[in-house]
Structure formats: C-alpha cells, structure tokens
C-alpha cells in the first residue's frame, strides 16, 4: 500500500482535564477527499488543528507524505506546509488587507513573489471561484458571507496546494449558497487533483464533497467508509446522523 | 492606509512646529557655541562637585565639569574641565571650588595667572584650592574647643576673630 498523504497516529490532546482526542488513528490516501463527521465538541476542529501544526498533541504523531511533522522547527515546517491550504469556518480573512492581498498572502509573504505578479495570480484565483476581478480591491468587511467563503477558498487554492482542509465550509450559509460552495470545493479538489479533508456536520455537504467519510466520537474514529456506504451503515451514531434521530445514542 | 488624512496632516503640523522651534533654538545658541578643550585639576576636597557643574572666570561661565574621579594612589580628586576654546588660560592659573551661596551648589572658579604661556588641551592646572568645609568652620566658631571656653567667656574677642577666617562667599 502506498504511503498515505496524511496520517494521524495515536494522537491524543487534552485541555486541562478534558480529553479531546484519545489516541486517534486516521489516514487519507493521495487524491482522496475525506469528510470528518461528528457531533459538536467531539474534537473535529482539534484533529485538523493538530494536523496543521496549530496545536501540538501530547502523544502520537502526524505524518505528512510519511514524514513526521509533529515537532518540526519553524524552517522545516514552512517547507513541509507549503503545499497545504485551509479554508476556515469564518473564512478568517485579514480584514486590514484588500481581497487580492488576502488571496496572494502566501505568495507575497512566504514565497517572495513581486506584488504585481501576486496581484495577477490572485485575480486568477478569484476567477477560479467565480469572483469578478473588481472584487480584488474591496476589503473583506464589504463582502457577504458567501463571498468571504469564496475568497477564503481562493486564498487556500492560490498556492496550488496538494492538500486542502475545510472547516465547516457551509456553516452559516443559506442552502443555495452552501450548495454553490460545496460544488466549488468538489470542482476545485478534482481539477487540482489534491487530497482534501473536510470537517462537517452537514451530511449533504459530506456527500457532495467527500469520497470517504469518517465518524469521530469521544476523540476516536468510530466508523469509516465510503460516502455511498453512509446510508447502509449499521453503527448507531452514523444511523442517528443519517436519520437525524437522536434515539439510540447515549 | 485609509481615512488617515486628518491625522497625517496633524502629524506634519507637529513635526513642523518642533522643527521650527529647534531651528530657532539653534539659531539663538549657535552664535556662542564653539568648540571646547579639556584640562584637569587635582583637589584635596571636591566637596560635592558633580559633572555638569559650571566653570567660571570672573563670574562668567566658560565651561563645565566633565568628570570627577579619584586618583587611587594619591587619593586626590581629579576633576576634568571642559573649557570654551575661545578662553585661553595662562599656565599658572588657579582653580578654586566655590559655593554659589550658603545653600547653593558648588562650581569651579578659575583665577587667571600672569604667565606668558597658556594651558594646553589636556594640561593640568597646577594651583588648586579645594572646597571649604563651610559647616565645619561654622561649627568651630559656634562651639569653640572646651579648654578655650572659659577664656572665650571672659573675652568676646575670639568669635569675631574666628569669623574672619571664613572664606569669602
């Protein structure tokens, strides 16, 4: 079996007395799109933050292309994380910068691309998420929630990443906008040929954007399968998720 | 950089004001400010002289004390004086530590001598007169020695006589 693109090995993370991740094992194969399902507060965000190096786990390790990146120093980490893009839940755009500088942030500040060229590439990336070039000079506060998400997505894919993370990409959006974002994500992941990991508690979203689905509960993966298997899964938590019926769970 | 125009303008106004004031101040003081040279003098008693204390000739400021140190061998206080280079001091000048008043700070007065050659930069003033322990003197006047007390009681003369020993202030 080929080395997985990304792998969590026995990752544990606690906040005070609260154990959020409890020996989590999970891997994503190259070119696959994984959706991480789970109820609120079960450690989905922490799972991604550990993988991104935003949090350091107490135990276990995160392997990127087979290399342990858990305790890398600043310079090495910058190199290994260069091919990673992330779309945050609230888009997390830099509100002091215009849209194009947001999208071209990595190009300007990490890759040393000249500003004029970065601007051109940012506008190109905006086009990929179907935003007009005029948006480039607006500030994030002047955009609607859906447009902010698109700009966030443009920022995540601007550096031609090989691995993308999505944190609740459709939360807080109306169904039509959410559908558009889902399609956009699916489209970009396929066209860029990259690996994707998404957090969601929206089943529809998971079915649209993911090939594989993993169910996280109490800090561990309790069920894993392909998106099409969701409906026939016999795990009570997955069934409760699919039917929206809390009966049978705790 | 949006909507900062008012503040930016105010910033320039403040800078301009400070610049004009600085130029004016330099204009006022620039006329008299020339270079200076350093000489040193040794005193048996520095008496609270501090760097920055003024150096005067005939009551006119000609420089300032730049450092006060102790000579570890002779235990003399070595005071370095920075003197305006337009003031040439004869080599036999006398440096004296004087008080500005009863409660005032001390400064150094230089009494020019009559020699033909001047003190060179880095030279040393040979004749010095250290600080006078004013309160020690006053104490001697107020409380004469105990064996002299009966005599002092019989005659009023010693007190005025001692007072004449006080240096001019």
């Amino acid at each position: 079996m080929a080395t997985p693109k990304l792998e969590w090995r026995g990752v544990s993370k606690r906040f005070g007395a609260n154990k959020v991740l409890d020996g989590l094992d999970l891997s994503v194969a190259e070119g696959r799109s994984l959706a991480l399902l789970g109820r609120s507060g079960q450690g989905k965000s922490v799972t991604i933050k550990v993988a991104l190096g935003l949090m350091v786990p107490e135990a276990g390790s995160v392997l990127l292309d087979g290399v342990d990146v858990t305790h890398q120093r600043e310079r090495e980490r910058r190199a290994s994380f260069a091919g990673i893009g992330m779309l945050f839940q609230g888009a997390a755009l830099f509100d002091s910068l215009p849209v194009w500088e947001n999208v071209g942030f990595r190009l300007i500040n990490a890759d040393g691309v000249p500003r004029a060229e970065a601007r051109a590439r940012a506008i190109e990336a905006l086009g990929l998420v179907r935003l007009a070039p005029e948006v480039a000079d607006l500030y994030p506060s002047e955009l609607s929630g859906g447009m902010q998400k698109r700009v966030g997505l443009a920022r995540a894919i601007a550096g031609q990443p090989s691995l993308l993370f999505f944190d609740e990409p459709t939360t807080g959006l109306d169904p039509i906008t959410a559908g558009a974002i889902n399609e956009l994500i699916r489209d970009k992941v396929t066209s860029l040929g990259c690996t994707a990991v998404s957090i969601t508690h929206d089943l529809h979203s998971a079915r649209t954007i993911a090939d594989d689905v993993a169910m996280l509960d109490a800090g561990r993966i309790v069920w894993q399968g392909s998106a099409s298997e969701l409906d026939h899964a016999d795990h009570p938590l997955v069934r409760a998720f699919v039917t929206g019926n809390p009966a049978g769970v705790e | 950089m949006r909507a900062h125009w008012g503040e930016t303008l105010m910033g320039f106004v403040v800078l301009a004001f400070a610049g004009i004031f600085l130029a004016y101040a330099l204009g006022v003081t620039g006329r008299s400010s020339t270079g200076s040279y350093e000489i040193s003098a040794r005193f048996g008693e520095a008496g609270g002289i501090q760097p920055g204390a003024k150096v005067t000739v005939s009551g006119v400021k000609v420089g300032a004390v730049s450092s006060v140190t102790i000579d570890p061998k002779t235990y003399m206080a070595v005071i370095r004086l920075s003197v305006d280079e337009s003031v040439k001091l004869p080599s036999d000048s006398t440096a004296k530590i004087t008080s500005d008043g009863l409660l005032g700070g001390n400064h150094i007065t230089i009494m020019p001598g009559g020699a033909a050659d001047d003190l060179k930069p880095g030279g040393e003033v040979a004749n010095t007169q250290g600080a006078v322990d004013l309160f020690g003197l006053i104490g001697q006047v107020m409380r004469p020695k105990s064996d002299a007390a009966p005599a002092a009681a019989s005659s009023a003369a010693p007190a005025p006589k001692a007072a004449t020993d006080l240096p001019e202030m």
Partner: protein
Amino acid sequence: MPHSAPGGVIGWVNALGRAVLDGVAAVGRVGHFAARGVAAAVTPPWYPRQILGQFMAVGFLSLPVVGLTAWFTGAALALNIYSGGDRFNAETVMPQIVALGITRELGPVLAALMLAGRVASAMASEIGAMRATEQVDAMFTLSTEPRRYLIAPRLIAATVSLPLLTLLADLIGVAGGMQVSKLLIDLPYSIYITNTVDFITRWDVESGLIKSAVFGFIIGLMGCYHGDTAKGGARGVGRATTSAMVSSAVLILAADYLISSIFARL
C-alpha cells in the same frame, strides 16, 4: 472546591499560595513571550511593509497627542514653578527646572502613558480580534509566522518610535515652558533658550531617551501579549484591551522608578 475548601487560616494560606504561583507563572509567560518576540524581531525574515505600517500607526499618528501633552505639561510646569517657586526665588531658574523636569521625567513618562492609552490598547484589540476570528491561525497556515508578521513589527516600532516621540516631547515641552515664562515674567525667548541649553547636559536628554526605549518595548509587549492571549470572543478582546493599557501604564511607572534609581547610582 466549594465542598472541600478548608476554612480559616489554612484557606487563606492556600489562596495566597495560589495567587503567588499564578503571579510567578504569569511573569514566566510574559517573559517567554517577550523572549520569543525579541528573537523574531532580530532574525529574518522581516516584513518591511508591516514594520513601516506600524511606524506610521505607532509613531507618526501619535505625534499630535504627544505634542499637545508635552506643550501643556511644559506650560503647567512653568506656571507651577512661578506660583510655588517664588517662595524661595526659584522663578529665576524656571527654564532650568522646566528643562530638567521635561527631559528626565515628564517627557518620557507622559509620552509613554499617552502611547499606552493610544497604542497598547489598539494592538491588544487588533491582535485579540484576529485571534478570535482565526486570522492568526490562518496566517500560520499560509506559511507566515504570526510572531514575525504581527508581533515583531509592533515591538520594533514601539521601541524605536517612543524615543523619537520623546525627543519631540522634550522640544515642545520646553517651547511650552518658554511661552509661559514670556507671559508671566516677560523672559525673552532667547534668554530662556540660552539658559536651557547651557544648563541641560547631554545625559539629561539621553537618560530620558533610554527610559523611553524601555517604555516603548513595554507598550509593544503588553499590547501584543494581551492581544495574543485574549480568550472568549468580544468580551475577552475588551478585557485584553483594558489589561494591555493598565498593565503597560503600571509597568511604565515601575520601570521609571527602577531605571531612575539605577541612573542615580551611576
């Protein structure tokens, strides 16, 4: 805890011990944060646009408030010497006292306190809001170290700007005193300036500037630290803003006493 809290003296001792430990831990955290901030400020990569932007925000835009403060302080100082100092003929040394008071103490301290109010709070709220909306995390995922992009420029700008602002405050404070002297005792400007320049030593000004560099660092550090550790959304950001301002003001005054006592011994 409520059900097992030991009463009386032991409870007090416990509380005291915990408070002391918390205090020591806080000092350690700030120290660690400061060390990492300084390390980021002195090693590449630097972000010149950010540094320049912070110089604009911290230094240049503080000019009006610092200038006004200095002017009124110099003027009030001269006024007080006039009305209080004539008891022992001190009004003749008005220029000297104003100059000494401004350069050694009031210039650095008041400029720093104005900056603490204007800048430390702004830094804390800006970084705190960026934390709360995951902008700091986003920056990290875009291969840019937030410590280098956000913290280091602020520390550099605050530490360098404040001495420059203090120099300006010294000048304007003296000008304020000069104006009042002219009005009150009709002291000509030229004499006021000559007296000031003759009296003031290089060290009077330099010691003030050294102080203000330390104050500037305190302001940058407190602003960034409280912003970076802000927790709990808008409320947390509000709290961070207040603590950044209060703690930098208190630390500035404490540092002022400490540095002055060290200088007094030199």
